């Protein structure tokens, strides 16, 4: 196990590259889903307001 983690002396390079990849992938998921949720909330608010004014 330790030998695996040491990556033949390249530990800091290999693990930082894979770690950063994980961060970028997770960030892509989180940002896309947050954006989707906030767009939905904002537009729902807009629809609710429009329905209160019947002239629309």
């Amino acid at each position: 196990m330790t030998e695996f983690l040491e990556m033949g002396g390249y530990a800091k390079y290999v693990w930082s590259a894979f770690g950063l990849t994980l961060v970028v992938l997770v960030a892509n998921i989180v940002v896309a889903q947050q954006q989707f949720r906030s767009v939905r909330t904002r537009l729902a608010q807009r629809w609710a307001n429009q329905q209160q004014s019947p002239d629309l």
Partner: protein
Amino acid sequence: MWTWFHKLGSPPHLYRLAGKLAPWLLWIAIVLIAVGTYGGLVLAPPDYQQGDGFRIIYVHAPSAWMSMSIYTVMATASAIGLIWRMKLAFAVAAASAPVGASFTFLALVTGAIWGQPMWGTWWVWDARLTSELILLFVYFGYMGLRAAFSEVQKADRASAVLAIVGVVNLPIIHYSVVWWNTLHQVSTVTKLDNPSISMDMLWPLLVMIVGFNLFYIAILATRVRSEVLGRERNARWVGEALDDLLPENRVTA
């Protein structure tokens, strides 16, 4: 076939289809990326020259691949939008840009992390690295240009022109390692008939590339949904799509 194509052009249909597909695509992508990572870090043997350091290829090459293929999608969708005035094509292009930029960033940084132990430097101003950096700036330019317009139609058209012009950079990135002398090694994978990499090293890389592609499509699906909602905000179907968030469900038709 045509009805299918026609349906795909209808915003509410695309919105629902993307919503159904996105979680599946994302999970398949996560499984493939996990399998590829295990194969790359554990099962593949160390390289005879680079030892375990070569394993960075399993995240670097797929990121670099995505940085270019997402750009190709973005530019193609932009062209389709301009030529056939397809609003959904513009939505696909706009939704692709941030994902493409993030993979370009990842390709550059993992490349630097790989370069340090192998070449003795994080960065050289050679053709491959410089053209990839320019790709990142083109993505930023595209997003910045979009953000500068308040009207989405104007943003679509202006940014589409930029995306199409930026295509000239793609062959430069791809052939840079052949055209110029560089520290960057030549491609390992694109010559599948005569690969310069053994099968037990190659398969995790291919699994990673497929996984990254599905990952992009999954993120694209969610981002396109946001784009479509915003663009169609006055359409009746949007009110129905937001039904669950509206007070007393007053929109139910």
